[in-house]
């Protein structure tokens, strides 16, 4: 289950554009780690490199190491499909499969992994929906399309889909940015519950959110337009928000950016 991530000397590129420069960072298991920073600083790019989604974009390349409990997910013999099965991801906008029922959405990952047993799928479906705090709301309409739910429910459905395969790590790319405050609160509560079982990495633009949900915060910045993003510092969330080590971080957090 929950595994630790060690990023070592990670450089990320989109074609010739150097997007992220030399990131080294350790992410502890059973913790919430937040990535914060201004737009374009590469925090989402780093997140996407943790389950090899970065390379899905044409021309995108990776240099450096990402160790999952000591094993490099970029090793030549590693299958990216396997990596993505053990590292789940939730996206900025809820993206349930619109043609699938709620039930099929939840167990989609399991079906891809070859699970066919009806009773097992039923069991995982209920457990995951309960885990995502959605069960009570949808238990009577599991056969209805997932696209019919509200935005917040859809996002929780996507979280249920991600945790159904019991991943080692859960990556969240601004999971609340398309949601209203009440749904946001529901997701934040859920994140706090999920960290008992999973290693969670969340990208957020909302600093209050980072302060509320995360144990550790990593601040990314870029020195100018067209320059690569860098990791400025990473520390306990409390320390970052009360007494950051660098002036840059303090300026960003207190709103004196630039």
């Amino acid at each position, binding site marked *: 289950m929950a595994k630790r991530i060690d990023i070592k000397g990670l450089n990320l590129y989109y074609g010739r554009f150097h997007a992220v420069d030399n990131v080294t960072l350790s992410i502890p298991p059973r913790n919430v780690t937040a990535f914060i920073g201004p737009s374009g600083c590469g925090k989402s790019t780093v997140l996407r490199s943790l389950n090899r989604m970065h390379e*899905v974009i044409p021309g995108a390349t990776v240099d450096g190491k990402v160790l999952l409990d000591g094993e490099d997910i970029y090793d030549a013999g590693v299958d990216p499909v396997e990596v993505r*099965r053990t590292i*789940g991801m939730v996206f900025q906008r809820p*993206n349930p499969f*619109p043609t699938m029922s709620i039930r099929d959405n939840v167990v*989609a*990952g399991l079906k*891809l992994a070859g699970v066919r047993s009806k009773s097992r799928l039923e069991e995982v479906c209920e457990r995951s929906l309960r885990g995502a705090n959605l069960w009570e709301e949808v238990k009577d309409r599991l056969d209805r399309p997932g*696209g019919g739910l509200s935005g917040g429910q859809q996002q929780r459905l996507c979280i249920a889909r991600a945790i159904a395969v019991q991943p080692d790590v859960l990556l969240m790319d601004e999971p609340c940015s398309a949601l209203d405050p009440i749904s946001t609160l529901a997701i934040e509560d859920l994140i706090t519950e999920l960290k008992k079982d999973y290693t969670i990495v969340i990208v957020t633009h909302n600093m209050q959110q980072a302060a509320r949900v995360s144990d550790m915060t990593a601040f990314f910045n870029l020195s100018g337009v067209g320059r690569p993003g860098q990791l400025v510092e990473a520390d306990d969330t409390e320390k970052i928000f009360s007494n950051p080590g660098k002036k840059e971080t303090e300026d960003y957090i207190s709103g004196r950016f630039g």
Partner: protein
Amino acid sequence: MIGAMSDPLGNSLPARRPTVRRPGDTIFQFLTTASGLAIVLSIVLIGVFLLLKAVPSLAADQANFLLSPNFVTTGGKLAFGIRDLFVVTVLSSVFALVIAMPVAMGIALFLTQYAPRQLARPFAYIVDLLAAVPSVVFGLWGIKVFGPVLEPLERWLNGNLGWFPLFANGNVSISGGGTIFTAGVVLAVMLLPIITSVSREVFQQTPTMQIEGALALGATRWEMIRTTVIPFGRSGYIAASMLGLGRALGETVAVLIILRSAPEPSRISLFDGGYTFASKIASAASEFTEALPTGAYISAGLVLFVLTFVVNAIARWIAGGRVHRP
């Protein structure tokens, strides 16, 4: 209902207030409405024309119009039926569709999901170029080049799978390949650009977030295509195929050149010869001097018109009823 002056609960709603209208809008609205009406009007007029010309000949028909395999309009006698025209038309078109649909989907998926970007563009252009080849050229190529190439395959199917009705002996000789089989394969090639280009467009529009959602769950590329791209594009793909079917049903010259004329009624085999609605009418075009024999062909055209209409209606129904958009 009309005027919408009350809401569903029966409360009256305020009337629309008069407002300023720009002359440009009025003129443009008139022009677009007129264009819209013109197309409806021409469809109706074509239908009325076919019906008016067909009725006297149908009344004078001595054979069963729907069930007779013969089409006699010469020698002062009218005894025509459309059974064989219908069989040959539907058989060749459906056979063409059966071949073209999977191939077109393969091409469309290759172009949108697998081909490197530099290759996809010229390749798509080549596929579209197929649509620019005149059908008379397809016909010549079909009978002179492709028919003889297919002949051994047709013989093998006939010899080994002849127990299956569609591969049984037909009413013409296989030699030379002047059969529905050849016509169907050539039609399939003609349908490819139609089905491919529409399918490519719809597959292309699969939202990136759907694709990434599937990949992030640990889907392989093919599984991603199966769970997101194909369901997203399915209705468009089916509608495109029906569009292609309509095209195949009406194809004239290529089929006229390829199909050998048959001495006997159809045996409902792919190795039959004969005429489709369109090729029958075209073959008789020089004889349209007297009203009654001409009306016989017009009534055949009317049936083709209705057939195409039904196919298009089915396409609309499929495309409209099962569209899933996020």
